[in-house]
């Protein structure tokens, strides 16, 4: 029981990660793939934030009478990763818009068929 409840965060990370990863692989719709990619990345954010938590630790702001703080570094790292994720999503969606203009569809199979028929 402790294995499940004690590592609750990490179990969620694994579930979200797999859900996102599966969406990226299985979906043929290009926008849904990007959404899957986002969910996949969010799981990593959660992983980092969970790592940074110290049991009983306070928010990492120096204050009198507090001497146990959570580790702020993973939070800072993940801010960078979030920015990277936003940039990736923006670029990915921009590409989808251009693909829609060029092919008239955002379904992978239709795009593939159009390329094959040339």
């Amino acid at each position, binding site marked *: 029981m402790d294995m499940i409840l004690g590592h609750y965060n990490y179990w969620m990370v694994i579930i979200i990660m797999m859900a996102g990863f599966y969406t990226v692989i299985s979906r043929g719709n*290009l926008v849904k793939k990007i959404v899957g*990619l986002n969910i*996949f990345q969010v799981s990593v954010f959660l992983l980092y934030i969970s790592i940074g938590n110290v049991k009983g630790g306070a928010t990492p702001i120096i204050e009198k009478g507090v001497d146990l703080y959570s580790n702020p570094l993973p939070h800072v*790292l993940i801010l*960078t*990763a979030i920015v990277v994720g936003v*940039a990736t999503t923006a670029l*990915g969606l921009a*590409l*989808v818009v251009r693909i829609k203009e060029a092919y008239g569809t955002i379904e992978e199979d239709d795009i593939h068929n159009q390329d094959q028929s040339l």
Partner: protein
Amino acid sequence: MIENHLSLLLVALPLLAAPIVAALPNGRLPWALSTLVSWSVCYLAAWQLMNVSSGQVISYELGGWAPPWGIEYRIDAANALVALIVSGIAALTLPYALKSVIKEIPQQQHALFYAAFMLCLTGLLGIAQTGDIFNLFVFLEISSLSSYALISLGKKRQALTAAYQYLIMGTIGATFFIIGVGLLYAMTGTLNMADLAQRLPELYEHRTIHTAFAFIMVGFALKLALFPLHLWLPNAYTYAPTVVTIFLAATATKVAVYVMLRMVFTVFGFSFIENTPTDELFLLLCVTGILSMSFYAIYQKDSKRLLAYSSVAQIAYMMLGIGLGSVLSVTATLVHLFNHALMKGALFMAIGALIYRVGSSRLEHFSGLGKQMPWTFAAIVIGGLSLIGVPGTAGFISKWYLVLAAIEQQHWLIVGVILMGSLLAVAYVWKMIEVLYFNATDEREQQNTAVKEAPLMMLIPMWVLVLANVYFGFNTELTVGTAEQAVKLLMPGAN
């Protein structure tokens, strides 16, 4: 003054240039500034390599924060060699780019194109320079995001889907990498590579470290297009604008191979790898990769796709060197990394010159061009010989070392595969030469549109690389000498 900040300038210069280039009016100015920056960066990289070529290590503390808390740039012979390859290829690609970009990319996008190119250069140089594993991820994403954008600028609409496919695969690879980094951080509390290397040995048995290792390896195998994770590469190289293909083919995958070397030898240490099935797995994948991808290359009808499949096979040679894990084989990997950049750069430039004149990259449209464009044709012949590994060219040196390494460990099967791979390379290089020289040109002659030799601005960078292929086939002081120094630092216990 400059010398103290050399390591940082190498990354900061193109990074600062990128927004300026983007703001310049479309025309020749963005190109001129990017070329200037790439030449200065190349000069700095050569300077840096001279400083570390006899085994010194430069440690640069960013913002004066002492490692392992601050970000450290740690330069030894391996980094400096990779930085020189990246900046050298950029310095040669940009002069070449002027004419090619005018023809392939709409004028209103020129400034942005060169800005993205500068960002890609920043990212690749950053990966080569940094000694901080999270910083490496950031630079990886800078180079990847800009290369997705660059690839999508290709003329055909397939360029868009190729870029999208690469974006999905590349992001999965990069995310795998940060999962690995996160797990390493959870176990050791550090992100500095040198510090990690010291803290990891006592945790070797821990399952989290093994998981981290697996994530990092798979992530970078995606990035460097190790067979069978190479699916994004052929489309990306085929449909990207010519200049982008030259630059990415000669640098992006090489930098990823360098990261793999760093992770395997510096961070984890080869003694860790030996206790996992990784090296056997590498050997198996590389052997299948070399044979199957070389076969694929023979059956391609598009010249860029043919060379792309050949690239996947050549990357497998480099990974073979890591898999064998001896001093000789890792030297071979580093030398091949350098030489392959030279030969693929030269070949893609030559193909680019043909595309510039004919407007297509399909082999059937190249028939008989060899006689009309003798200099470009000669470049393809010499570049092709180097790709095969004929004595007297750079390609021979790296394959020679790889074969020696395989013989040293008595892996006769691998010796056979390396030689077989060269034979298959003869077949696909011959395929290009046959079309170019021995096929008739009647169709075009009937239409009376003889093709002229490529412009001088394209021929000069192409021939610099071609001559480098020959030069480094005779003088191995820079390549093998530096690689041996690098290996001494990568594998301290081995000799």
